[in-house]
C-alpha cells in the first residue's frame, strides 16, 4: 500500500500544472490578500496563533494552556544547553553572536556560498559539527529545546525571509511552492487543499488552520506528541495523514517547503515556541 501511495504521489506531482512566472513578492501579496479576504474579522497579526485565530470555540482553552505553557521547561533546558561549552571550549554563542537580540526571524535564509537554504535547526547542527560535536536528532528532543530558547529570544520580531535574485534561491523557493500546491499521497491532497482553500472548515472535528502564520510559532509543544517538535516533524505528520511517504526532516524537499512557507508569513511576528493540542 505504501508503495502504491508513493508511486501515485510521484506521478501526481509531475502532473500538477504549475506556473513559475510569478515572483515571490507577487505570490506573497496574493497569498496575504486571499487570507485577509477569507477571514475579514481576523487582524493580520492574529494569524500567528494558528487555528486559534479562526476557531473561537477552542481559543479560550488554548489561552488557558498558554498561561502555564508546557514548552517553558524546554526553553529553560534549551538555555542551559545553549550555554554549555563544547569540548573545544567554544559554544553556540560563537556561532550565533547576535542571538540575544533575536535571530530566528531571519531563518531560513539562502546562503550564497553553498547555494543552499539554511534552517535554524540545520544551523544549530552545523555549529556542533564545525566544533567537533555530534549532530543532534532533527525532529524532537535537544534540538527543539535549543531552538525553543532561540525562538523565545526572537519573540516580537517580524518574519524576515529573503529570496535573493539568484537562480538557485529562486529554484529552491519554487520547489517549496510546488510541494505546497501539489496533490500527494493515496488520498491525493495538497497542503493548499487543507490550509489554503478549506482553511477555517472542519475536517471531522478539527478546524483547519490557515497557512498564513503557520511558521511563526515553531517549535511547538503538542499535547498529542506529549513533547516538542520542529516544523519538519509536523510536515511529516501532515504528509502521513494523506498516506504519502513523508520526507526526512531537513531533507532538501522540506527545507524548500519551509523556505516558501515561511516567506509567505513575512512581516508577521514570531511568537514561538507555542502550545498546540
Amino acid at each position, binding site marked *: 500500500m505504501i508503495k*502504491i501511495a508513493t508511486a*501515485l504521489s510521484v506521478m501526481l506531482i509531475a502532473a500538477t500544472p504549475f506556473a513559475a512566472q510569478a515572483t515571490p513578492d507577487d505570490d506573497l501579496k496574493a497569498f496575504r490578500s486571499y487570507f485577509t479576504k477569507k477571514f475579514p474579522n481576523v487582524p493580520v497579526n492574529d494569524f500567528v496563533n494558528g487555528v486559534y485565530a479562526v476557531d473561537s470555540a477552542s481559543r479560550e482553552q488554548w489561552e488557558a494552556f498558554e498561561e502555564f505553557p508546557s514548552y517553558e521547561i524546554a526553553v529553560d533546558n534549551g538555555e542551559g544547553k545553549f550555554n554549555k561549552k563544547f569540548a573545544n571550549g567554544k559554544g553556540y554563542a560563537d556561532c550565533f553572536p547576535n542571538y540575544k537580540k533575536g535571530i530566528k526571524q531571519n531563518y531560513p535564509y539562502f546562503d550564497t556560498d553553498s547555494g543552499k537554504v539554511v534552517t535554524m535547526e540545520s544551523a544549530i547542527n552545523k555549529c556542533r559539527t564545525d566544533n567537533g560535536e555530534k549532530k543532534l536528532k532533527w525532529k524532537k528532543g535537544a534540538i527543539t529545546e535549543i531552538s525553543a530558547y532561540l525562538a523565545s529570544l526572537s519573540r516580537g520580531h517580524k518574519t524576515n525571509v529573503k529570496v535573493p535574485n539568484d537562480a538557485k534561491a529562486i529554484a529552491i523557493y519554487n520547489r517549496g511552492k510546488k510541494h505546497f500546491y501539489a496533490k500527494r499521497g*493515496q*488520498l*491525493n*491532497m495538497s497542503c493548499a*487543499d*487543507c490550509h489554503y*482553500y*478549506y482553511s477555517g*472548515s*472542519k*475536517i*471531522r*472535528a*478539527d478546524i483547519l488552520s490557515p497557512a498564513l502564520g503557520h511558521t511563526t510559532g515553531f517549535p511547538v509543544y503538542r499535547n498529542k506528541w506529549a513533547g516538542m517538535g520542529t516544523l519538519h516533524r509536523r510536515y511529516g505528520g501532515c504528509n502521513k495523514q494523506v498516506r504519502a511517504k513523508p520526507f526526512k526532516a531537513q531533507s532538501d524537499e522540506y527545507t524548500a517547503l519551509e523556505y516558501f512557507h515561511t516567506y509567505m508569513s513575512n512581516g508577521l511576528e514570531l511568537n514561538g515556541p507555542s502550545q498546540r493540542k
Partner: protein
Amino acid sequence: MRITAHITTTTSIVALIGCLGFAPSIASADEAADLAAGKKLSFDRKKGNCLACHEIAGGSLAGNIGPPLVAMKARFPDYEKLRAQISDARTNNPNTIMIPFGPHAVMSSKEIDLVSTFIYTL
C-alpha cells in the same frame, strides 16, 4: 462477521414469514445487509471516511468541507452519476479535495457499489 449473522437472522425471519404466505422477496434481506455494509464502509475512517467532510444522518462529529449528503435522489436522478462522483470526484471538479476512491484504490469497485447504494438512500 456481524453482517453474516445479520443476514442469517433476517433470512430466517423472511423464511418464516414466507411460510405464512406474505413474503417480501429474498432480495430485500440482501438489500438490508448491503445497506448496513455500505454505511459501515462510509463511516470507516480507513475506507470512505465520508464524515471527515460531509454530514451524514446517523454519523457524528462530521466535517463541513463538502455539502451535507441529503436528498441524494433529488440531486442525482441518475444513480450512475452518483456512483461516478464517489468513485472519482475529479470527473466533475479536476482540482477537488475529495479523494479519488476508485482510481487510487482506497476502496474496491464492490466497496464503492456498497457505499453508493447506501448514500443513495439518504
